[in-house]
């Protein structure tokens, strides 16, 4: 795509700004800042990826994945305020999902072990694990808030922390995987996924594009479940004291 063509796509942003001014939506500022940020961030990423692809060396690749992991964990950690060491716990959960996904994809030679495959796939794995961890924490806090009495009753009857929180954890893991699993059922019928769209526009045959998309979808079901289950395992103990008492982490 030529640079002129790219610049012409700013027309879309222009339309949004005009609509915003007309209807007093007061979105102009956010639209302009958002557009500039997206352009700078993605252009920078494009150049960095180009360099890493050309170098094709493991240390650079690992560095990029590490940065992705840190940013993702930092982002999801905001949803877990009140749980100690939540950043580390999320980092471990997402990293585990990434390691397992890459071990399968590369170990079985499903994709080539080159940055060209590893980086975009890792991006999707890490991004989805991040969303899954965020959804898990959201739901977990909601469960604790609404089921505080039920948890206390279970404890009072002699349940351990694990027994008392079990159903809340299970609901939260389930909630964190719903978007991906629902996506499995309607994919292609409602919208073509971004990656497949990109491949098709880039000239890949739709059949080939579909194969990659399926690979992504299938691996993401595992990734979301793995990351939120590990997170569940790591977080529940810090909701309780050692004497199996519910802490007041949430007001």
């Amino acid at each position: 795509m030529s640079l002129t063509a790219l610049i012409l796509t700013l027309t879309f942003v222009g339309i949004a700004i005009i609509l915003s001014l007309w209807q007093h939506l007061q979105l102009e500022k956010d639209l302009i800042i958002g557009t500039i940020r997206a352009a700078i961030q993605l252009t920078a990423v494009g150049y960095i990826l180009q360099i890493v692809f050309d170098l094709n060396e493991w240390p650079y690749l690992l560095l990029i994945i590490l940065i992705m992991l840190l940013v993702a964990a930092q982002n999801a950690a905001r949803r877990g305020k009140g749980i100690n060491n939540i950043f580390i716990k999320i980092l471990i959960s997402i990293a585990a999902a990434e390691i397992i996904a890459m071990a399968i994809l590369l170990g079985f030679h499903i994709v080539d072990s080159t940055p060209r495959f590893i980086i975009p796939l890792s991006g999707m794995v890490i991004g989805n694990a991040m969303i899954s961890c965020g959804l898990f924490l959201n739901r977990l806090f909601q469960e604790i808030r609404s089921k505080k009495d039920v948890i206390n009753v279970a404890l009072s009857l002699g349940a351990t922390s694990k027994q008392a929180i079990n159903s809340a954890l299970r609901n939260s893991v389930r909630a964190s995987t719903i978007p991906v699993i629902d996506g499995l059922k309607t994919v292609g019928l409602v919208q073509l996924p971004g990656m497949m769209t990109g491949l098709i526009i880039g000239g890949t045959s739709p059949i080939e594009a579909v194969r990659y998309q399926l690979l992504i979808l299938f691996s993401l079901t595992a990734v979301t479940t793995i990351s939120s289950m590990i997170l569940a395992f790591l977080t529940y103990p810090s909701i309780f004291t050692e004497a199996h008492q519910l802490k007041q982490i949430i007001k």
Partner: protein
Amino acid sequence: MAQQENNLPVFQFKNVIKHQPLTPGNNIAILENINIEITRGNIITITGPSGAGKSTLLFLLNRLIDTDQGEIFYQGKKLVDWDVTELRRQVGLVFQHPTMLAGSVKDNLLYGPLLHNEYPVESPAQLIEQVELPSYLLERDARDLSGGQQQRVTLARTLANSPRVLLLDEITSSLDPKTSSSIEKLVISLNNEQGYTCLWVTHNNDQSRRVGNTTWYLNNGKIEVI
């Protein structure tokens, strides 16, 4: 050993201090340096104004919360030295506001014993009839029961664990006088025949006189024995 156990007070408070947050940075004294004993086989009724800390006191004994300072002993051993799940089974708590666990009434009754892969000494039907409820309710979803029915299920659920001590928090507040009186008789018979020690929070002075050997009036962090 059994003899020695019988001579020990069931509970012993030594310089117990407990505060609860009232507003941020502002605490209310629930227990202010309390030294008191509870002897075996007693029914102690606890009264006091709303917010005085009666429920908090029961939570301390079931160890859902801890004291700020001082120690509480159960059978001569510090609460904190007990295996907490075992302590909670022996010192059964019936909450002020009935809360049903997920599932049927039967699931609720079996919850405590099944945690230890045990079955209650009394059958679910016996347990529920004890609290004046018909056994056909066993299969009903517990959350569909009325408030008064739930209140009685919570009592039966605690009894299913065969506790030695019963902590009862206004357990007849949603019951009609007749059912209320049956529950009183049940607790008195458990106390007479099986030696249960009870702490019973009640706002009803008549009830307090009917069931209690001793009454505690809790207010401003002090306990007054009446």
